């Protein structure tokens, strides 16, 4: 406040003016601040709401399939990108020599390389991996037709560490010393890349990309391309790192500020069934039950995520086994053989036998309907879709074969089952280990006799093993033109006919192996209609009218097979299927869903847990004795009484 005594009018005016100016300044600052906030808000709104600027800058890719990171006990494989995506200047690779531009001479690294599928080879990918400071990512253009040259991204010796051929079992056969099963395998699927690799279909988006490259990035006639250049950004940031132990540990850390899952174990379900029903609640060894295990594999993989057609590597085998089960439906009901037949379809076999190792583990721990001692023999159906000249090969384990006559019988039965059919079965004719198969896991536990049916004598005939090209086209499944989807479903292709023959052989062998009568063999035939429908559903289109019939529908009703009553003159109950509209609905107090444990509106009753509840009686001495026992000599009579306490 200006002092009246020492100020002249001018000073007072000056003071007033300064006060006024400072007030104005403060107001202006406030107004400016509000203005800026409002402007930012509107800009943000415009940016988010209309997105018109974003649409003018970016073109989103519609169909892209990444390669993802997988981890195991010791390694990580697959691809990784930065958290904010990898940006690279586009470069369409013309040949392997053109890599020099990307890796050394190009002036605007990092580059994002577009590869045609013919250039997606191990040598090019390894060179890109080594020069990864200049490589931002790779996009592979997948063609509409399979390449003519076979190539497999899997390793050349699949599952070599988890089969039965270890140094202990037989060192001469370990590590594919005798036969390299997948000679075309490059091992690309098991390499680690620190840039993202995406697959794109050959469609309009890809044309746009190529056009963008031609217009902006192409170095023509010695002139270097100038900015602005066409670039691509790929996002595929993977959360897990190092190996499985690390990522499972990081899943479970309790006191982290932001706990989140970083990886999941690969898991799914095996499918199994038996011709004579087995009590699944009584686990462990079943007395008197002798089972023939018919096994096949369900899964496959490729370099990219979620593309796994596996036509020859997986589908051919399990389709043949399904058709064989279908062929046996009458014979096993009318003249059931003495042994049971257990059909088992294993999942996860590609990744070191997840499904079969789990089933063997469950059997060993008495956690499965039968035991390993219940298994009489194993018949596995492997890759059977490509059999050239209609020949099938029967592989068996040379080590356990020496001590087993059941093996010889099984092979003879297979050969007799195939007689009169269009397919011939033979043994490879030299001592060779089993190919990668689920049967190897059973052999690790017990020397069970068994045979694996394949269409290759030694190395795989499948030239696209575990590749995205192992599809219907590779199995030559072709339909005449101008058929509707339903007509295609019912059309019996040549591949289906060939697989039907295989299924018939398998079915007949299983029947005899289970102890059935030879006289019935002629009536056991697989149905080509069934085979072609299953092949269509799994390899061409799964959303077809036949599969739709088999999907469970529980919109209105639930279904239950009930025991039923025993008719008057019999002790066996007659069961029936009951369709009910009655349902269950949860009866848990809403207080627990809302986490309102002090709620006044809802019941908050809980009951304690306890460890053991029991009681007992015994004789007890006087309390004074407990205190004075060491202090004074107690009367003998009481001592005698005290030590007489009977344990109850």
């Amino acid at each position, binding site marked *: 406040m200006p002092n009246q005594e020492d100020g002249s009018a001018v000073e007072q005016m000056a003071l007033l003016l300064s006060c006024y100016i400072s007030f104005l300044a403060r107001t202006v600052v406030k107004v400016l601040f509000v203005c800026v906030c409002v402007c930012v808000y509107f800009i943000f709104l415009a940016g988010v709401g209309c997105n018109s600027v974003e649409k003018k800058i970016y073109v989103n890719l519609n169909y892209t399939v990444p390669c993802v990171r997988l981890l195991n006990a010791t390694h990580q494989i697959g691809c*990784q990108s930065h*958290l904010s995506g990898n940006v690279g200047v586009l470069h369409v690779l013309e040949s392997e020599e053109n890599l020099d531009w990307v890796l050394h001479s190009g002036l605007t690294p990092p580059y994002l390389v577009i590869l045609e599928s013919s250039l997606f080879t191990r040598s090019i990918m390894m060179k890109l991996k080594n020069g990864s400071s200049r490589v931002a990512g790779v996009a592979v253009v997948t063609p509409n037709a399979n390449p003519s040259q076979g190539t497999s991204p899997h390793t050349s010796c699949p599952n070599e560490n988890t089969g039965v051929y270890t140094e202990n079992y037989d060192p001469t056969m370990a590590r594919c010393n005798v036969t390299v099963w997948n000679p075309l395998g490059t091992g690309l699927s098991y390499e680690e890349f620190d840039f993202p690799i995406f697959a794109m279909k050959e469609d309009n988006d890809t044309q746009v990309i190529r056009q963008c490259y031609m217009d902006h990035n192409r170095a023509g006639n010695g002139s270097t391309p100038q900015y602005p250049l066409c670039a691509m950004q790929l996002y595929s*940031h*993977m*959360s*897990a*790192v*190092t190996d499985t132990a*690390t990522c499972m*540990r*990081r899943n479970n*850390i309790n*006191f*982290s*500020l*932001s706990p*989140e899952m*970083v990886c999941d174990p690969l898991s799914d379900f095996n499918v199994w069934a038996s011709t004579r029903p087995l009590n699944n609640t009584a686990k462990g060894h079943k007395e008197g039950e002798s089972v023939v295990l018919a096994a096949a594999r369900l899964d496959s993989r490729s370099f990219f995520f979620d593309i796994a057609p596996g036509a020859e590597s997986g589908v051919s085998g399990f389709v043949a086994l399904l058709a064989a089960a279908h062929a046996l439906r009458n014979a096993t009901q009318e003249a059931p053989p003495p042994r049971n037949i257990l059909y088992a379809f294993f999942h996860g076999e590609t990744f070191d036998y997840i499904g079969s190792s789990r089933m063997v583990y469950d059997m060993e721990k008495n956690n499965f309907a039968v035991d390993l001692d219940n298994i009489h023999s194993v018949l596995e159906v492997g890759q059977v879709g490509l059999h050239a000249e209609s020949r099938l090969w029967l592989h068996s384990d040379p080590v356990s074969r020496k001590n087993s006559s059941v093996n010889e019988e099984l092979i003879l039965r297979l050969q007799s089952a195939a007689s009169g059919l269009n397919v011939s079965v033979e043994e490879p004719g030299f001592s060779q280990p089993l190919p990668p198969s689920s049967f190897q896991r059973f052999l690790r536990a017990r020397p069970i006799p068994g045979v694996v049916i394949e269409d290759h004598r030694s190395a795989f005939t499948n030239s696209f093993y575990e590749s995205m090209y192992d599809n219907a086209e590779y199995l030559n499944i072709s339909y005449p033109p101008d058929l509707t989807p339903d007509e295609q479903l019912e059309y019996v292709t040549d591949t289906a006919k060939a697989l039907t023959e295989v299924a018939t052989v398998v079915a007949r062998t299983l029947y005899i192996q289970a102890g059935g009568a030879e006289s019935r063999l002629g009536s056991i035939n697989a149905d080509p209609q069934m085979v072609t429908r299953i092949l269509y559903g799994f390899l061409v289109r799964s959303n077809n009218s036949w599969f739709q019939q088999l999907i469970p529908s529980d919109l209105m009703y639930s279904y239950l097979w009930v025991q039923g009553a025993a008719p008057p003159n019999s002790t066996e109950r007659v069961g029936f299927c009951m369709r009910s509209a009655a349902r269950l609905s949860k009866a848990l107090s809403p207080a627990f869903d809302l986490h309102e444990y002090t709620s006044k509106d809802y019941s908050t009753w809980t009951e304690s847990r306890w460890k053991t509840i029991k009681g007992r009686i015994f004789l007890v001495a006087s309390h004074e004795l407990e205190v004075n026992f060491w202090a004074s000599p107690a009367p003998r009579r009481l001592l005698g009484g005290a030590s007489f306490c009977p344990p109850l």
Partner: protein
Amino acid sequence: MNLERVPNEEKLTLCRKYYLGGYAFLPFLWLVNVVWFFKEAFMKPVYTEQLQIKKYVKRSALGLLLWVTVLTTWITIFQRFRAEWGEVGDYLSFTIPLGIP
């Protein structure tokens, strides 16, 4: 707070409080002590309490240096080697980065 108008005894008490407080694992108190009382201790003309204040400021500076060294060393080692320590590194961390070791 403006030390101009504070009597010297109070300055000494303040300096001592900050110096003693820093021993409770509070090196920032020592930092404040050094910065705040530096002028008082070394650049003002001599007065009775200045010797004591000088002592406290020197000792605070020493303690601060020690803390800075220890913390810098530990932070460097942790940032550099956390990935290699595996389990121990994860249990020592509050936030573990995704996707990188």
